[in-house]
C-alpha cells in the first residue's frame, strides 16, 4: 500500500495536519502567528547546514529550529519586543541560509523543493519521521494541555495554580520547532505557517471550547490536505500550494458561516 506515492503523500499530509492542529490553536490564541513563520524561515539555515555536512535535512532543520525557539524564548522580555526579535532572527537565519546554500558548489540543490515542499516525493523513511514527529507533538500537547491553556489565559492565574508560564512557553516553542522540521518536506518553508494558522482560524467559529477547536482544526486540516492533494493531481498544480489553497477555501466557508449566524441571531451587545 505504501508503494503508491499518492498514498504516501496523503499519509504525510494527514500527519502534518494532525500535529499542526493543537499547535495552530495555541498560535492563534496567543497571537503568535509570526512565530511560526519565523521558525520556518530559520529552517532554511538548517537545510543549508545539513546539505553542507551531508546529514539528514530533518536533523539540520530540527536543530536550527530548536535553537531559534530557545533563543527567542530566552531573549523575550529583555528589552526587545517579540516581533522585533523574531524579525531579526528569522530573516538573518534565512539570509545566512541562502548565502550558505550558494557556497555549496557541485551539489545541485532544488531550492524550490524546500521553499514549497515536495510532498509527492515523500519516501517511507520520510513517513516514519513525519509520523514519529506528529506522535511526539501530540503527546507533548496532551500532556501539557491544561498548563498551556492556563498560561495562555493569564500568567498570574497559572502561577497561582502552580504552573510556570515561562516553562509552558518553552514547551510550546519546542513543539513548534519539531512541527516545522516535520512539515518542511510536505509544504515547504514558505507555507508551513499557513498549515498552522488556517485550519485553527477556520475552526474558531465552529467551536465552543478549546478542545473542540483543536479537534475541528485537525478535521479541517485533514480535509484540506486530502482535497488539496486530489485537486493538484487532477489539475496538475504544485501540491503544497494547492493544499494551502484548499485550507484557505475552508477558512472562507467557515467565515461565511459565522457571518450568516451572526446576522440570524443578532447577538446582544456587551
Amino acid at each position: 500500500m505504501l508503494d503508491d506515492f499518492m498514498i504516501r503523500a496523503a499519509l504525510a499530509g494527514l500527519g502534518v495536519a494532525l500535529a499542526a492542529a493543537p499547535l495552530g490553536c495555541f498560535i492563534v490564541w496567543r497571537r503568535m502567528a509570526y512565530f511560526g513563520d519565523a521558525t520556518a524561515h530559520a529552517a532554511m539555515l538548517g537545510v543549508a547546514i545539513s546539505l553542507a555536512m551531508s546529514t539528514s535535512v530533518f536533523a539540520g532543520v530540527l536543530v536550527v529550529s530548536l535553537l531559534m525557539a530557545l533563543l527567542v524564548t530566552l531573549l523575550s522580555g529583555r528589552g526587545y519586543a517579540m516581533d522585533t526579535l523574531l524579525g531579526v532572527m528569522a530573516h538573518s537565519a534565512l539570509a545566512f541560509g541562502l548565502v550558505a546554500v550558494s557556497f555549496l558548489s557541485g551539489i545541485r540543490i532544488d531550492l524550490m523543493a524546500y521553499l514549497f515542499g515536495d510532498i509527492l516525493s515523500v519516501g517511507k523513511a520520510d513517513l516514519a519521521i513525519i509520523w514519529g514527529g506528529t506522535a511526539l507533538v501530540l503527546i507533548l500537547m496532551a500532556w501539557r494541555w491544561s498548563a498551556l491553556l492556563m498560561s495562555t489565559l493569564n500568567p498570574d492565574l497559572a502561577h497561582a495554580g502552580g504552573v510556570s508560564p515561562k516553562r509552558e512557553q518553552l514547551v510550546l516553542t519546542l513543539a513548534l520547532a519539531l512541527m516545522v522540521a516535520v512539515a518542511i518536506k510536505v509544504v515547504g518553508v514558505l507555507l508551513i505557517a499557513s498549515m498552522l494558522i488556517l485550519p485553527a482560524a477556520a475552526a474558531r467559529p465552529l467551536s465552543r471550547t478549546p478542545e473542540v477547536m483543536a479537534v475541528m482544526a485537525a478535521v479541517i486540516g485533514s480535509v484540506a490536505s486530502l482535497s488539496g492533494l486530489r485537486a493538484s493531481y487532477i489539475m496538475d498544480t504544485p501540491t503544497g500550494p494547492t493544499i494551502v489553497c484548499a485550507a484557505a477555501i475552508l477558512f472562507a466557508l467557515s467565515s461565511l458561516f459565522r457571518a450568516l449566524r451572526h446576522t440570524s441571531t443578532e447577538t446582544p451587545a456587551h
Partner: protein
Amino acid sequence: MALIAARNLTIGFAGQPLLEQVNLDIRRGEILALLGPNGSGKTSLLRTLIGALPPSSGCISRQSGLVTGYVPQRLHIDETLPMTVNRFLQLPNRHPREKLQQALDQAGAPALGARQLSTLSGGQFQRVLLARAILEKPDLLLLDEASQGLDYAGIRQFYRQLEQIQQALDCAIVIVSHDLNLVMQSATRVACLSGTIVCQGSPDTVAGMAEYQSLFGLDSPSGHPATAGVYPIHPNCREA
C-alpha cells in the same frame, strides 16, 4: 500558625524598591484588606504572595500543602479563544457538574455556566473568576480589586458573599480594594501600604489612625490630603 508569612520582603522593579520591610502573617479565619493609593504596590504584593513575582529580598514561608485561590485584577480573554464558563472553571482540574454549580451559586453567578467567557460583562466575569478560585476549596483566597465593574449594591452583596465563603471554607481572604467604607465593614484586619506597611490592625483601630487618614486624604489634621512622602511606621499597632 500562619498560612503564609512574609519576612522583610522587598519588592521592586529594575532595582527600584516599591515596597520595603514588609512583614505580614496571614492566618486562617481572617479577612485582610490591603489598602493604599494607586501604585502603592498592593497588586505587586499579592503577586509576590502567589509566587508570580519573585521578591528582591526577604522570604515567604507557606504552610505545606497550602491551596491558594487567586482572582486577578484584570483578565483579558482573547476572542480567538473559545471558552465556556463551565470549561474555564475546570482549569486545571475536572470537577463534577454539581460542584461547578455550587461554586457558581456561592459566587453569585448561578446562571452563567453555559455562557462564553468573551460575552460576559465585567461584573459577571469577576463572579466567574471568584467561582473558579473557590472551586478548589482554597485555604487562602486572594482577590485583587475583585469588586470592580460592580455597582454599589452589587459591591455590598459581593462582600456579603465573601463573608459567607470565608465561613463556609474556613479560609483566609486577602482583598485589595478601593471601596474603603465597604471593605472596612467586612474585613477583620486592615493593612495600609505606602512604601511599606504603614499601619495595620482592626478596621476600627486603623480608621482612627493618622497614617490612614492622611493616606486617603480623610480629615487629615492639616486639612490637605497627603500627596507623597514617607509615613511613620507603627510596628506596635497590630491588632490585640
